[in-house]
Each structure stands twice: as structure tokens, then as C-alpha cells.
């Protein structure tokens, strides 16, 4: 196998990590919508870290190895339309992911605040934060962007 084959393999493996992380967050989004007490909200923290790690490794790997391939593989150039489209979609997905994280962190912060104050019972404000509509919309948008990247990578429009 050539170096480019290895880089392509790592690029694809990074994509697997990215999608797996997104799916983990979908399950968390579903679980947290039914959570109105601080302790269960806080206990999702370790799983969030796993999801963050998977998405981080996935996004980092796809962009680094992807740009390498754009420069290295014959027949493709970084200014090809489908590669520019992928870069734009990747940047949008990264920003959407950052905003999704910020939206759901508010619930986690509130849960920690409530626990520090010794309040362990159900809290309507916490439930409202955990059911953040903007977070749900942003995560849906992030997933749609991931799907568009996959479509762009396979069909390579204009290549």
C-alpha cells in the first residue's frame, strides 16, 4: 500500500469516528429531553466526553487527511469545486457542532449550579434547558451537513 492509500484509510476511519460521535450525541439529545433533575444530567458528562472525543478526532482526521489527499493524489486539486464544497460544509459542520455543544452545556451548567445549591429535585428551568429547541435544530443541521459531505465525497460533482 502506498502512503496515499494509508492516508485515505485514515481519512475514512476518521469519518467513521465522526459519524459515531454524532450518533452518540443523538442518543444523549433523546435522553436529556426526559431529564429534569441535576444528578442524571451531570452523570451524562462522561458520555459527552466520549462523544466529544469521537467528533474531535473524526473532524480533525477528515480535514487533515482530506487536505493531504487533495494535494497528493493525482487528478484532484484543492480548488476543485467538490473539494471546496466539502471544505465549506466541513467548516459549517464544525461551527454548528460548536453551537450545539454550547446550547446543551447550559443545561449541564444549570444542573451543577442546582447540585451545588443542594437542590436535587425536579426543576422546570433545567428541563427547559435540557429540551433546548435551538440545540435540537442545530444538531439536526449538523447531521444534515455530515450527510451532504458524504454525498459530496462519493459523487464528487464536477470532478
Amino acid at each position, binding site marked *: 500500500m502506498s502512503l496515499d492509500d494509508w492516508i485515505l*484509510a485514515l481519512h475514512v476511519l476518521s469519518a467513521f469516528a465522526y*459519524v*459515531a460521535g454524532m*450518533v452518540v450525541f443523538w442518543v444523549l439529545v433523546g*435522553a436529556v429531553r426526559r431529564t429534569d433533575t441535576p444528578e442524571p444530567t451531570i452523570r451524562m458528562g462522561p458520555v459527552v466526553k466520549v462523544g466529544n472525543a469521537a467528533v474531535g478526532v473524526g473532524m480533525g482526521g477528515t480535514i487533515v487527511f482530506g487536505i493531504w489527499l487533495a494535494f497528493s493524489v493525482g487528478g484532484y486539486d484543492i480548488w476543485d469545486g467538490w473539494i471546496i464544497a466539502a471544505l465549506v460544509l466541513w467548516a459549517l459542520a464544525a461551527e454548528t457542532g460548536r453551537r450545539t455543544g454550547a446550547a446543551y452545556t447550559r443545561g449541564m451548567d444549570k444542573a451543577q449550579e442546582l447540585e451545588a445549591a443542594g437542590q436535587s429535585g425536579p426543576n422546570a428551568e433545567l428541563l427547559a434547558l435540557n429540551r433546548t429547541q435551538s440545540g435540537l435544530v442545530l444538531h439536526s443541521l449538523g447531521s444534515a451537513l455530515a450527510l451532504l459531505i*458524504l*454525498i459530496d465525497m462519493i459523487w464528487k460533482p464536477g470532478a
Partner: protein
Amino acid sequence: MSNEALLFFHLAGAFLFVSGGVLATIARVTALRRERPSDIASVMRGARPAVPLIGSGLVLAIAFGFWLADRLSVGLGSMWLTATFALLGWVLVVGGIAGRQDRRTRELAERLATEGDTRSTELARRLRDPVNLTLNASLLAATVAIVALMVWRPS
């Protein structure tokens, strides 16, 4: 159907299959670290979405994989494909066994949660059952191996 469309559905299936495997693993490992049966039951319920993900992912990946292999004239007897089929068989059989064991553990945790929410020795034994943990670890290893075989396609 174009080759691109076949590859898209094959890859989409593979993504679903791997995501389901990762999800099930996270749920199983997290359950090990919980003390209260209600927490354990809650975490293990989180693995439920993994079942349709793995199932639909396998169907898509295998069906469109065969179609793609036929379209691209890839020999079904090649070593990497044979190894992949063997690993898929392992995932199906062992996944069924480990899945049933985990379901019984979750049902026990749910029962204990309604009876005082105190962890029993039976629940602790089931959670740390070395056979079940080994089977689950082998499923993750097989999933990683399948992805590696598909990506690298050795010889």
C-alpha cells in the same frame, strides 16, 4: 442504480453499523461504573437504539456491498472478503447471545430499581461476568477488524 449510489448506501450502512457498535459499547462500559440499579437500567436502556442501528446498518452494508462487488467484479472468494464474512457471522451469533445476556441484566436492574434501588450481588455478578464482557469486547474488536478489512483490503 449508479456505482456511486451503491457505494453511498453501502457506506451509510457501514456508518450505522459502526455507530451502533460504539453506542452499545459506551452503554455497557458506563453501566459497569454505576452503583444504583436505576442508574444501571437507565444506562443500559441507552443501548436500545444500537439494535436497529446495527441491524439496519448490516442489512444495507451487506446488500449493497454484494451489489457493488458484483458491479465491480470483485471476487467473493478473496481473502479479505472471506475474513469479513466470517467476522460478520461472529457479530451476528455473538451479538445475539451477548445482547440477550445484557437484556436480562437490564431487566434485573429495572426490577431492583423498583424494590428499593439497592444493588444485589446477582446484578454485580452479571455486570462483571467475564464471559459476557469477553463476548462484548470481541464484538467491538470484530467491528474494528471489519472496518479495517474494508478500508485496507489486504491482498
